[in-house]
């Protein structure tokens, strides 16, 4: 170890010699350094300094201060730690007494340097105490030594400090608590972690400041730390077996981890750089990494190739289960408040009509002029036509709930007449959530979309009526969806023959709905 320290010194001298030439005022210090080194090596005797533990930084400070005052050169000191396997020079048996301070010795060390040293001393490298002493020794002659990142000793010290800071940061990040119960209304958690360096005690304040409101214990191979709401405690190291094997929330955490990942952007190297494999064994989510990475290429490809034909299973995925309102009245009240009348719409809000639990749920487009005046859905000419058709199809009006995709009349004023205006796709879409709530409250077996506006509202995308009518489609909540035309379409047909054919088709669609609801 003495050899290493003196080689550090020689190196420092070389660096100084090559860089100091242009600054005459500092050259004097260079001279002093050489003098001191001469003194140190002449003494010849090696000193063994033993520190109380691997994290005995206060001890190192005390000893280093005394050694500096006595101007003991770094290569005369062997640093050891209690309980470490005996190494080093046999010439330095037992603890060497530190010589008395030199007369008039003044010690100086920059605060900035001391902070770096205290961090670097938590590094696992056994030579760190010697390295730090070598630097403070040289710093007596070169007070700004630490500002020179090109000095190889400083570079190594900085690298150690950086590595320790990273280890601390990773411990802050990767400790995973598991709940072990509650005591006196405080939740209790335990974690197992394996740091690279001697940092366990150093991270304790972070966990106290963050998890003040719960009791916790963190066990590492070297030491353990605990908090009970009043004081931090440190104890001996332990093993993984000290920590329970599972926690109820870990399943949810894994679900989150699996779903927040975007399969189109696999970057395993970036991930491994920040979360090195050595940590994986203590991270509950790590078991998902390999399967997620394997399946990602396939998932992306699937999305790229997917055909966009409307599936037969419209609304299949609208699986929101519970209605958010206690009753239809509450729903309509909230809706009338949230859905304020817009330009071009009537002020009047027309709710759906019919019994809760009706097996058939008819959805039209929007209230018409008559509905707007009377305040009830499907009472105008189209409503009357629907009534007739329902009767023909054998459907009891009491078993049907009727409502509209949009709940206000949209019109254009022409003189005294109010001309119906089809709502835009955007307006229909804005009401979809409400319509879904309405359906959840009624809980129908069969939903009938009257016309393309209603079909869009129910399926969330345009559906061609001609393509999908006459066949039951699967809908959310195990219901069936039947699409057909809007009764007003039947009113608008010009010729009688066309009217007759279309009305029959319409009644057939309603019969299909009745059969499905049976």
């Amino acid at each position, binding site marked *: 170890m003495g050899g290493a320290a003196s080689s550090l010194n020689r190196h420092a001298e070389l660096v100084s010699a090559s860089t100091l030439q242009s600054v005459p005022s500092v050259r004097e210090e260079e001279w002093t350094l050489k003098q001191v080194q001469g003194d140190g090596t002449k003494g010849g005797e090696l000193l063994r300094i033993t520190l109380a533990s691997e994290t005995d930084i206060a001890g190192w400070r005390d000893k280093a201060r005394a050694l500096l005052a006595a101007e003991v050169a770094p290569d005369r000191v062997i640093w050891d730690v209690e309980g470490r396997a005996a190494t080093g020079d046999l010439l330095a048996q037992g603890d060497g007494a530190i010589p008395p301070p030199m007369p008039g010795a003044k010690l100086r060390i920059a605060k900035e340097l001391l902070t770096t040293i205290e961090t670097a001393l938590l590094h696992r490298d056994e030579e760190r105490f010697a390295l730090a002493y070598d630097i403070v020794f040289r710093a007596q002659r070169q007070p700004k030594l630490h500002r020179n990142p090109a000095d190889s000793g400083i570079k190594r010290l900085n690298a150690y400090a950086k590595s320790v800071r990273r280890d601390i940061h990773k411990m802050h990040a990767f400790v*995973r608590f598991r709940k072990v119960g509650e005591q006196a209304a405080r939740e209790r958690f335990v974690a197992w972690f394996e740091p690279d360096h001697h940092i366990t005690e150093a991270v304790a304040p972070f966990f106290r400041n963050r998890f003040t409101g719960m009791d916790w214990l963190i066990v590492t191979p070297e030491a353990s730390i605990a908090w009970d709401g009043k004081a931090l405690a440190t104890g001996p190291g332990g093993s993984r077996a000290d920590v329970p094997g599972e926690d109820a929330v870990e399943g949810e955490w894994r679900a989150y981890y699996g779903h927040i990942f975007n399969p189109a952007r696999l970057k395993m190297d970036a991930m491994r750089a920040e979360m090195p494999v050595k940590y994986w064994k203590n991270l509950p989510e790590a078991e998902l990494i390999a399967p*997620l990475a394997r399946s990602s290429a396939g998932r992306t490809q699937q999305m790229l190739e997917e055909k966009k034909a409307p599936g037969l299973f419209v609304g299949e995925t609208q699986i929101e289960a519970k209605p958010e309102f206690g009753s239809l009245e509450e729903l309509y009240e909230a809706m009338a408040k949230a*859905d304020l009348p817009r330009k071009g719409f009537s002020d009047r809000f027309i709710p759906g009509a019919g019994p809760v639990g009706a097996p058939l749920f008819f959805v039209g487009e929007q209230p018409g002029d008559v509905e707007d005046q009377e305040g009830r859905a499907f009472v105008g000419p189209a409503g009357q036509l629907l009534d007739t058709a329902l009767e023909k199809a054998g459907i009891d009006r009491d078993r049907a709930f009727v409502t509209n995709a949009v709940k206000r009349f949209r019109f254009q004023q022409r003189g005294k007449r109010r001309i119906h205006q089809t709502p835009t796709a955007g307006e229909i879409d804005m009401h979809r959530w409400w319509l879904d709530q309405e359906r959840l409250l009624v809980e129908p077996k069969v939903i009938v979309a009257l016309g393309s506006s209603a079909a869009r509202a129910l399926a969330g995308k345009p559906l061609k009526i001609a393509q999908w009518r006459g066949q039951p489609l699967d809908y959310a909540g195990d219901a069936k969806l039947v699409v057909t035309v809007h009764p007003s379409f039947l009113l608008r047909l010009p010729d009688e023959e066309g009217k007759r054919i279309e009305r029959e088709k319409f009644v057939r669609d309603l019969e299909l709905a009745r059969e499905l609801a049976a």
Partner: protein
Amino acid sequence: MAVLSRSEKLAILADAAKYDASCTSSGSVKRNSLKSGGIGSTTGMGICHSYAPDGRCISLLKILMTNYCMFDCHYCINRTSSNVRRATFTVQEVVDLTLDFYKRNYIEGLFLSSGIIRSPDWTMEQLVEVARKLRVEHKFGGYIHLKTIPEADPDLMTEAGRYADRLSINIELPDDRAIAAYAPEKSGKRIRKTMATLGHRIGEAKVERKANRKAPLFAPGGHSTQMIVGADPSNDAKILTTSSGLYGSYGLKRVYYSAFSPIPDASSRLPVAAPPLIREHRLYQADWLLRFYGFTVGEILEGGEGGHLDLAIDPKLAWALKNRGGFPVDLNRADRETLLRVPGLGTKGIGKILSARRFGALRLGDLERLVQSVRKILPFVTLADWHPGGRLDSLSLRARLTPPAEQMELF
């Protein structure tokens, strides 16, 4: 009809949130729970508690309140015409989930966003209520980022800022025409107006805090936005000009760029292609040059062609290759502003050079100790024992500094 468990909802609503690039938890005030006896702290520096296989940091519980949405924005997986599974969390479920995850040290906090249901105000109220419950009822000291809804009442924004560390509004597309075409219910004007109000309030609260340390906080982590890259035909010039305008006018902390990823059940108006990850990466580099290196948008674009950045090399190198007249730079004498323009030198390396050269003239060996790699730097600088000679003007310089193509494919 099956009732969804919390875990199933979490899967659906995390899936819905993953296209938001931001996951930072840094830059807010420092806080801890020692006094309150609650749970949570912020250190000023964010902590990534895990990393997903896409290399992205997992720092926050990033979820949607609901993925039902009235709006039909083409680029969005949650648009009303998309056929994805839908779910809605209750306020209490989000609060519990956040605390359960936080207490196990999985996360730094919550990033909450939502599809718009019932009305913009109602939706925003739900978001604010989650933040209020966490802060007030549970004494939660962790990080909270709320995605605000520009169409909601400004008073709700004020309330949100009281509890949240950061607020954001996504602009999504770089110009108003694109917004009108791809997000018919949104308006660029409205988004910018809300951003301006937000920036103004954040600035105001900071000034008040300086005068009076007990003045209430308002989103101390600032506000941010996100732009989608590659969904619409806008070029890099348009994107960077928009960013630069946003940084300048609204005091934004960050603009995030998100390469458009193919989404399930995509709208037919969108490109069907793998996400332009390299382009996203170059935009982030350009963004850095704008914010920390004193470059203007015009200068950055000089390095590319036709309003697009050079995808093969980084934007600073591209600029330097087209402006070789300003090089070589003497590393022993140049000021910080000039050093910032040297390819391969970052702000940290420059700091080290400035402090090391006080100890004497820097040589090649010194530079090697100060920076990660000298390969890209050497053709553009001189040192006590180094001059690039003809290398700087060599026609093959670009080719020699371009990384091999197979490394550019990030997956």
